[in-house]
């Protein structure tokens, strides 16, 4: 299922003195089956764009086509139910999407709501809570009596339990510990390998380099670049000019370059850099 934006603009609090630009004439396609990363500085419009993927926000002008469904400025809020099942979203402040008395009920709510039997929904909840790395004893605790990172994991479990066609993730690893972040990114990669469409907003350029096959760069409500991570990260200066960073490996390679090392292209991953260094430091072997 592709999602296509056609000249979409979105204005917050339109027609008031407080009106502000969220999106500015965005035309872009997010392909079914792809792993799309969206990057951009603070306030550039990433979360605003994401909320158009399941019609939480509707364009002020332009259209969004989500599979067969067309969303226009006049689309009514009725009948969005099927769409919410297809497109599952983990919010930037994931705590705000928790609501039930127990973690078990919270995670089971999505599937229940979409017609799964109580028994099967509960089984899904148990399975998903384990998948996001939480111990079983949290199941019967209140989701509000958890640490920040634990709450985020519950929110992710809740969306996974809905088994959506498109998984939309707004900085899902912010607040996760380093091991949790690694495991969570591996889990998303596995889902993607099994055919899941993923849209990820992140400030972790390493994750973009390691996992995404398409990158959208946003600036002031516009999509200013789209491409494979390999292309996007070659233009280091352009990214820095847009307040963005580079993968750690690319940064490190740039420092080596300043010292005097020569690379024919900038590496994105640690093994890639290690290999390039080994060739240069192995000296005789290479020459």
């Amino acid at each position, binding site marked *: 299922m592709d999602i296509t934006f056609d000249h979409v603009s979105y204005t917050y609090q339109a027609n008031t003195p407080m009106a502000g630009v969220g999106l500015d004439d965005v035309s872009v396609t997010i392909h079914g089956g792809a792993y799309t990363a969206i990057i951009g500085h603070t306030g550039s419009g990433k979360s605003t764009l994401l909320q158009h993927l399941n019609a939480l926000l509707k364009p002020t002008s332009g259209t969004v086509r989500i599979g067969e469904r067309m969303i226009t400025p006049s689309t009514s809020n009725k009948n969005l139910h099927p769409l919410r099942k297809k497109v599952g979203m983990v919010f*930037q*402040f994931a705590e705000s999407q928790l609501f039930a008395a127990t973690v078990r009920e919270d995670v089971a709510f999505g599937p229940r709501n979409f017609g799964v039997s109580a028994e099967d929904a509960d089984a899904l909840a148990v399975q998903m809570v384990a998948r996001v790395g939480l111990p079983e004893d949290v199941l019967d605790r209140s989701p509000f009596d958890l640490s920040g990172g*634990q709450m985020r994991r519950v929110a992710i479990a809740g969306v996974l339990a809905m088994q959506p066609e498109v998984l939309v993730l707004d900085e899902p690893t912010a607040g996760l*510990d380093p091991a949790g972040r690694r495991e969570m990114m591996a889990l998303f990669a596995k889902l993607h390998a099994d055919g899941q469409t993923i849209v990820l907003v992140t*400030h972790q350029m390493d994750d973009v380099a390691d996992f995404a096959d398409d990158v959208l760069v946003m600036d002031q409500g516009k999509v200013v670049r789209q491409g494979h991570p390999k292309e996007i990260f070659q233009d280091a200066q352009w990214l*820095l000019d847009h307040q963005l960073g580079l993968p750690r490996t690319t940064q490190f390679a740039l420092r080596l370059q300043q010292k005097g090392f020569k690379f024919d292209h900038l590496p994105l991953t640690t093994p890639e850099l290690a290999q390039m260094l080994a060739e240069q430091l192995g000296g005789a072997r290479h020459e």
Partner: protein
Amino acid sequence: MADDIITVEHLRYTYQDAQVAALDDVSLRVPRGTWVSVIGHNGSGKSTLAKNILGLLEPDAGVINVDGMVLSEETVWDIRSRVGIVFQNPENQFVGATVADDVAFGLENHAVPREEMLTRVDDALNAVRMREFANREPAHLSGGQKQRVAIAGVVAQQPQIIILDEATSMLDPAGRKEILALIRELKDRLGLTVLSITHDLDEAAGSDQLIVLDDGHVVETGKPSQIFAHGTSLVAHGLDVPYSQQLRGELGKLGIEIPGDYYDDEGLVDYLWTLRSTM
């Protein structure tokens, strides 16, 4: 010791109805004028520790001392006036109707004259690049903008102790660097102390001291270079090693062994360049 601005001795804290203590026999010291980072897996007790230091939670046992005062019902307000905290979720922090009101709120509690208050709020918003949003409702901001406003609160307050609970987790890479540099500049200029809870090991690597929590226990304390030197134990605590150590590991796999315990980025760049130059 006279020069420790925070000491915690044998602190235990258990949440209501919880089976196990969230903090158990925690002892630590924060020397005045230093930057100390607290790292640890999700649920290890970092935020609970911060809330105990502020007197927002009441310990089952143990003694907390802040700036020469033992934390108690009598001293808690005095202590809170010396500590500024940025909570993990900025949405739980906002009280003002506008961004400017919100930043001013921390000052109203401290009897700062109105004139000075306005200047400080304006300066703080400018420092975090949020001045143009001064009249916006805090709820109507992007995630990173909310974090910037929360940080402006402590920048305006200029408390003796700044506690950051993952305060930069949603900032873009350039913004994160810039905000950390801003706090560091403030700390150095005014002689403040920073206690920073973070999952960013590169930020932690730049601090004077690291405290590692695991399941409510302090499992290691020391300089980052000491703690990062034995990386495998960090991984066992749900953490990771800094980038320079990861690259060393990859080079090792290819037969390039680098002697010594720990290099930061700059150290490793220098070492590799020397190695290349001597070939």
